[in-house]
């Protein structure tokens, strides 16, 4: 029930609010933006409260640590919506999805806050709300059809966010974003349908229910299993995104409005990793084990190559976007270790990056907003004018380059420890990539907020014709909360770590270890 509300309420409210301007009496139409955004924020905060409560019940009635793998909490009674093909409304959460749900419920209100005064706010904020519902839907769905529906549904609000509120080249970016990810996920759809086919011997037996779907691998021949795994990988890897199917991301990010980028990087990319773990790994452990080298390759390529490309960027947002590609590589590496620690590290990476990357994009967005440019080097010494912005940039950049006591480090070190256990000296490549990461982050800071050669003011971009101000209160509030959480989860990761670790152990014990044994892969 709770989860149904979490996913459906924001969609319904968002859609209604978008119709609001057509319903409101004339007199109120001037305040429509204010009304809308207050309602949106209220709903988003309510969702945050609900999901926080759901997460916090791990302390009392629901023991998130003791959900058997494949068991779900907060489950509803499945309600058939398309009985002809066995689709039902079935939601639930486990230790894999709960942190993601909470993350979504957190990032969305923060992104609303950061773009509190967006243009055409009476459409903007409801769109974010719809987005939130769709994303939570992805995480709570226990029916693969519904999962896929929500999965694709997230594209639509994001498409509009980019198309209507984006930068100069927004049309191209919106198209590319939509088509690229859509293509990948329809490929994935074939895989899902093959799984569906194998859930029962006759049409009436078949169902899209997650549990049946995840067992379907047993019915398939080995080649088909691998093929389906591969099809799923295409869909999920594109969303993550992994090299070489990542090029939609920089374009989308650069053009997207700040809130869009925050959500895109913060939550949408995680959907890829989530889906991979939830569907591909869980349903096809043996294929995952067999294709571990591929995962390592993809992870390494994303990580190292992404970092190099970052260094070659001159656009701040583009650089940050590529850094997301780079960091997402660690998730594949973590999974490929086939160690509970590595998988838990990957999960925590999803979560940590979900907090850090919105901060990065909020900062980049603030540059765009206040200085009208994102070119690294076109402005110097910005710390003079915008000390808060510079501070947040420092915090975010440092968090992203894996500085300890911030959330990203926990994930990084966990993945690397596990990586060494499994792959030994190969660990040098990801480890040295951390240096590269530091190089581009530091260089970009040096060339934006530092170095003006004047103790009292910075070199402003040529295109800026007014005295710049520091960030607005709402931007500041959003960034501060994100920064504080980054540090909080860096110092005290165990809120979510414990359940992630438990989940990883269970998935290893119940699926992967057996698969490794039967495939003859030694841990």
């Amino acid at each position, binding site marked *: 029930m709770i989860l149904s509300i979490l996913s459906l309420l924001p969609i319904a409210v968002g859609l209604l609010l978008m119709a609001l301007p057509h319903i409101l009496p004339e007199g109120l139409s001037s305040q429509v933006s204010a009304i809308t955004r207050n309602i949106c924020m209220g709903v988003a905060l309510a969702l945050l409260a609900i999901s926080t409560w759901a997460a916090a019940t791990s302390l009392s009635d629901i023991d998130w640590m003791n959900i058997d793998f494949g068991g779900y909490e907060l489950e509803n009674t499945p309600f058939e919506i*398309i009985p002809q093909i066995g689709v039902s409304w079935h939601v639930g959460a486990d230790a894999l999805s709960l942190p993601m749900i909470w993350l979504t419920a957190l990032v969305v209100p923060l992104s609303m806050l950061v773009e509190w005064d967006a243009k055409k706010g009476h459409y903007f904020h409801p769109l974010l709300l719809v987005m939130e519902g769709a994303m939570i839907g992805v995480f709570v769905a226990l029916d693969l059809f519904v999962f896929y529906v929500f999965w694709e549904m997230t594209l639509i609000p994001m498409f509009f966010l980019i198309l209507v509120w984006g930068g100069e080249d927004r049309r191209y970016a919106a198209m590319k974003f939509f088509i690229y990810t859509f293509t990948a996920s329809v490929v994935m759809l074939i895989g899902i349908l093959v799984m569906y*086919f194998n859930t029962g011997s006759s049409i009436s037996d078949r169902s899209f229910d997650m549990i049946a779907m995840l067992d379907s691998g047993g019915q398939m021949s080995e080649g088909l299993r691998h093929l389906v795994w591969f099809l799923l990988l295409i869909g999920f890897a594109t969303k993550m995104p992994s090299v070489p199917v990542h090029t939609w991301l920089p374009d989308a990010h650069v053009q997207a409005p700040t809130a869009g980028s925050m959500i895109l990087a913060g939550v949408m990319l995680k959907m890829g990793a989530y889906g991979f773990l939830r569907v591909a790994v869980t349903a096809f452990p043996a294929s995952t084990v067999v294709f571990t080298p591929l995962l390592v390759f993809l992870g390494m390529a994303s990580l190292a190559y992404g970092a190099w490309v970052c260094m070659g960027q001159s656009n701040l947002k583009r650089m940050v976007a590529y850094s997301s590609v780079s960091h997402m590589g660690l998730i594949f590496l973590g999974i490929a270790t086939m160690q509970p620690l590595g998988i838990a590290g990957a999960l925590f990476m999803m979560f940590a990056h979900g907090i850090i990357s919105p901060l990065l994009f909020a900062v980049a967005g603030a540059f765009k907003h206040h200085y009208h440019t994102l070119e690294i080097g076109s402005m110097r010494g910005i710390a003079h004018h915008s000390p808060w912005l510079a501070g947040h940039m420092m915090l975010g950049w440092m968090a992203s380059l894996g500085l300890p006591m911030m959330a990203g480090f926990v994930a990084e070190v966990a993945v690397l420890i596990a990586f060494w256990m499994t792959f030994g000296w190969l660990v040098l490549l990801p480890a040295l990539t951390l240096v590269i990461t530091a190089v581009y982050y530091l260089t970009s800071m040096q060339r934006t907020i530092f170095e003006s050669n004047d103790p009292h003011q910075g070199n402003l971009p040529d295109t800026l014709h007014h005295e710049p101000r520091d960030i607005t209160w709402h931007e500041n509030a959003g960034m501060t909360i994100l920064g504080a959480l980054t540090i909080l989860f860096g110092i005290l990761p165990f809120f979510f770590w414990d359940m992630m670790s438990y989940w990883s152990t269970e998935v290893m014990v119940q699926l992967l270890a057996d698969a490794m044994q039967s495939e003859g892969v030694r841990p």
Partner: protein
Amino acid sequence: MTSELDGIDLQLLLPELVMTLGLAAIIIIPNLGDAKFRIPLTSLRVPVLIGGTRFPATRDPRLPNWMTLATLSAALAASTMALLDPPSSGQVGNALEVDQFSSLLTNLFICVLILCTVSATQRLPSDPDAPAPSEGDDEESESSKTAALYDNRRQADFHILLLTLGLGMSLMAKSTHLFMLFVCLELASLSSYVLVGFHKESKEGGEAGTKYFIVGSVASAIGIYGMSLLYLWSGDLSVSGLSQSWQSMESLDPIAAAGVGMMLVAFGFKVGAAPFHLAIPDAYSGTSSMVAGVLATASKAMGFVALFRLLLTIAMPASGPAFWYGTLAVISVITMTWGNLAALSSDNPKRVFAYSSVAHAGYMLAAVSAIGSGIAEPAAQELIVMAVIFHLCVLVLFKMGPFMVLSSIEREGSSHRVSGLNGLASRDPLVAASMFVFMLSLAGVPPFSGFLSKLLMINGIVTVSAGTGGASTILSWATSVNPVFWLAVAVVLNSALSMFYYLRMGMVMFFEPNEDGESSPCNPVVRALIVSMAILSLAFGIGPPSEWLLGLAEDAAAALLS
């Protein structure tokens, strides 16, 4: 089997009957006037009503529209009754049968026509008493007067054609006799040729009509010839008779195969399969949008009904693959690819939608060909037919929808360029949003009904084929799997390709507006209809309404295959 029509038969054919009556009324009533006939040798003038100066009510150009609407609504009610309360035996003579399948299709056709009729209200002139052009008018005023006149006087013709089209289609859906089927098809086709060429004053109208007519006639001539071959082969043209002959055939008779093949050409033209589709973009772009919408939905559905009858009922062997399955598979792939590719760079929205409708025909043909592969169990066959019927049904929403939007814009004369849609979002956000929903639905994006229908079709293909491969590596699986499986891949990749132009169409609405006004281009009724169609596109995509419609489609499929 009786050879006479009795009351029950009349009741079964109530929709058609209503339409016929309405047809007669529309022919007569607008011509009623104060003409009087002087009885010879007396000065007594008896009003004969036909001719003379028409009464204000009868000369109102909106009258035919209202009458058509009334007729179609009554027909829809009758047909819905038949659908919801199916008769125990729907046999009418030995040529027609009313069952779940034909009722559903009849409903579909009538719905399309209603939408078209409503949309046509936007073409009514504001001034019913517009003057006719006279000598000495300059060119400009003459053309404006002509335009006014065109709308003023020819409403009745237009609506008569619509009703004959409807009559032909709904009877065709009920035909269980191949010749009957063909006659009805011809009735519908001939009406549609005229409708396409209806705008005879413009260069485009005449040309579109000509092309559509010529190519269509050739196709149906080939079809009739094919049918005659079938007759030559079996001596019976009733579907059940042909089906029995086919099943009892030892090996494939070349005459029978040739007959089916040639009929495939005729029906292929109707559904818009490559390479018979070439005239379709021309026809759509030359005619008014609502007619194009009818062609893209109702006419296509009609083609599929014919294909079902021909391929699934007649030309299905008792076991093993049907001879046409490979052909159809190849055609389907070519069709969808051609359609999508060609739409990619088109700049005329109507052409884009024409190509898109070609592509959609390809998807459905792929599903149909999976049935013919001979590896589909009866349940799987039913599943696929259900998917195609469902797709045809929801297609009415999201294919007719954009044509209605275009039809609204057409009044402003800017529907031949994609840029005509510019700024629609700021002029009328609801219509723009609906248009966007239609685009996504056409592209097959969840949660819209286009996704569900496409998913069902792909699922059908996968269901038929996925169990066939078996090996330990991806490669050996890929080579051992039944080739039908690759149809699913083709559909999926084509969906991705189609995204390009659907999104482009959807996107331009959010661009800066052209100089065209600030107000909504639609009238309130049409606007409400468009929005509710968008909502239905969503509702049929997920949730209880889709369950209901799928149930209907399932029953229809069962009725067809029984």
